């Protein structure tokens, strides 16, 4: 097919048809205050100068020892991940879904879906979403569509940034969102949203929550998915959403990340996004293709419960390669994260920090110490990022620090942190 740009006459006809006088009028929804006429940027530099400039910027970076998690986790990425993801057959800005030419990527997505289902204890998942937060918001819309109710209850122990994204989506869908301290549900509630382990690292028994809320749907967020290597699969939840970047994708300054959403077979028609299925071709050979497409907005139009018609194929591929590579030794990796975090926790208590919660934890926990903000900043001068100051998210949690350990924090590094206190 040739690409033929529209002529001026054609553009005028199109504008007339939709009833506006100029292309600019199409952007009237955007407030004038944020519109710009001309970008104030310098003249283009030569490649040589650009390189120098970027090197100068890079030199300003401080390499820190990080004990920060809170939604973004520093995990080792085996080199095999980049080698495979970087292959030209895969490395494209476009997600090629056509079965005639894309059996490779479709099979990879199918394998990804299989792994996610196995890790989450759910029956069906999609080819991935933009990130964990938007996956959580999509799950809320999905729950309202399943239950035909329009109230969502979300625990305050869910990541604050995730709650903001959920709030934005819900407001556009006229969904009533209630933030609560304790799990509760009435007959108007479509779903209860929890995070496990929660923002403070606490591990909960999802089956007890599900038992308590009964018919109301349970959406469980898994934001540190390596926890699935050691914890019980969240099969008690009706919808599991998650952030998958821990699987072979870098922290990337917060994105691109990998949105996970999985659910029970009976809810598959409300699941947003692309789904790859396995089939046989006319010669009886195994093949892969998109399936259940009538859910999606290119067919279902305004009745579709999501506008997602894409996925993050490259991030999902990285996760697939990572999970295949880690295999059953993932259990050991999870165990290392858990042991290191518990080692640090116990040592901090010995050093005079006090405990804040009694619940079991995986690789994140909260401790408290007077004037901890000052200590936090002193440690930063020593190039140690000692957790997250929770007061910034929860004003009532003054002097509380949220720590995280992964396999990247060696015992020596943890001892260095303890020594610097």
């Amino acid at each position, binding site marked *: 097919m040739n690409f033929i740009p529209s002529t001026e006459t054609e553009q005028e006809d199109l504008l007339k048809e939709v009833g506006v006088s100029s292309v600019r009028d199409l952007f009237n929804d955007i407030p004038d205050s944020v519109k710009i006429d001309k970008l104030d940027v310098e003249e283009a530099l030569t490649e040589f100068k650009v390189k120098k400039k970027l090197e100068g910027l890079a030199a300003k970076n401080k390499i820190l020892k990080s004990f920060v998690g809170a939604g973004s986790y520093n995990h080792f990425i085996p080199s095999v991940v980049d080698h495979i993801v970087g292959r030209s057959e895969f490395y494209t800005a476009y997600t090629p879904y056509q079965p005639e030419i894309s059996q490779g990527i479709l099979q990879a997505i199918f394998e990804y879906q299989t792994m996610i289902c196995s890790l989450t204890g759910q029956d069906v998942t999609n080819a991935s979403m933009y990130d964990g937060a938007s996956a959580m918001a999509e799950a809320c819309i999905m729950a309202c569509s399943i239950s035909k109710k329009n109230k969502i209850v979300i625990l305050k122990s869910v990541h604050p940034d995730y709650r903001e994204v959920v709030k934005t989506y819900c407001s556009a869908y006229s969904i009533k969102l209630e933030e609560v301290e304790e799990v509760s549900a009435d007959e108007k509630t479509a779903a209860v949203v929890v995070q496990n382990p929660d923002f403070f690292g606490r591990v909960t028994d999802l089956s007890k929550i599900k038992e308590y809320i009964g018919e109301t749907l349970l959406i469980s967020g898994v934001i540190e998915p390596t926890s699935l290597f050691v914890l019980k699969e969240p099969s008690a939840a009706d919808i599991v959403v998650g952030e998958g970047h821990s699987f072979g994708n870098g922290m990337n300054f917060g994105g691109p990340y990998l949105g996970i959403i999985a659910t029970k077979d009976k809810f598959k*028609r409300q699941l947003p996004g692309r789904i790859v299925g396995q089939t046989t071709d006319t010669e009886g050979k195994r093949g892969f293709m998109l399936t259940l497409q*009538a859910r999606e907005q290119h*067919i*279902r*139009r305004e*009745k579709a419960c999501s506008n997602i018609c894409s996925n993050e194929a490259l991030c999902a591929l990285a996760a697939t390669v990572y999970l295949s590579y880690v295999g059953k030794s993932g259990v050991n990796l999870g165990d290392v994260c858990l042991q290191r975090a518990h080692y640090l926790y116990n040592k901090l208590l010995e050093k005079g920090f006090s405990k804040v919660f009694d619940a079991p934890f995986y690789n994140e926990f909260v401790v408290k110490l007077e004037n901890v903000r000052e200590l936090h900043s002193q440690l930063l001068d020593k190039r140690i990022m000692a957790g997250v100051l929770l007061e910034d998210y929860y004003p009532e949690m003054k002097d509380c620090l949220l720590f995280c350990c992964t396999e990247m924090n060696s015992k020596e590094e943890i001892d260095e942190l303890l020594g610097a206190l």
Partner: protein
Amino acid sequence: MKVIEGLKYSKEHEWVKVEGDIAIVGVTDFAQEQLTDVVFVELPEKGKEVEAGKNMGVIESVKSVSDVFAPISGEIIEVNEQLSDKPELINNDPFGEGWVAKIKIKDPVQLDALMNHEEYTKTCEAH
């Protein structure tokens, strides 16, 4: 194309079979031909009040998604659960095993607004 005498038809291609104060509703042979292979039927909810001309369910085929409109107002008293596992019944037997729902007729006068088989045949031929 099959059109059955004695049934009532809507312009959205649903058929209605009146049995006392109950209307059995399905989609016509013409509709199923247009839809091609049906792969999923979202059935109306039992006990729900539906309004004539308003959406009461959805039929998905391999090439499209279409609404099923209630040809008449009333309460859904029964739905064809078989369609959940065998949506192809709509293709194989649209006037029989492929029925969609039974509605308790609220206002029998609404039946007069529907077409008879001859009028409906003409509508389809005009397509």
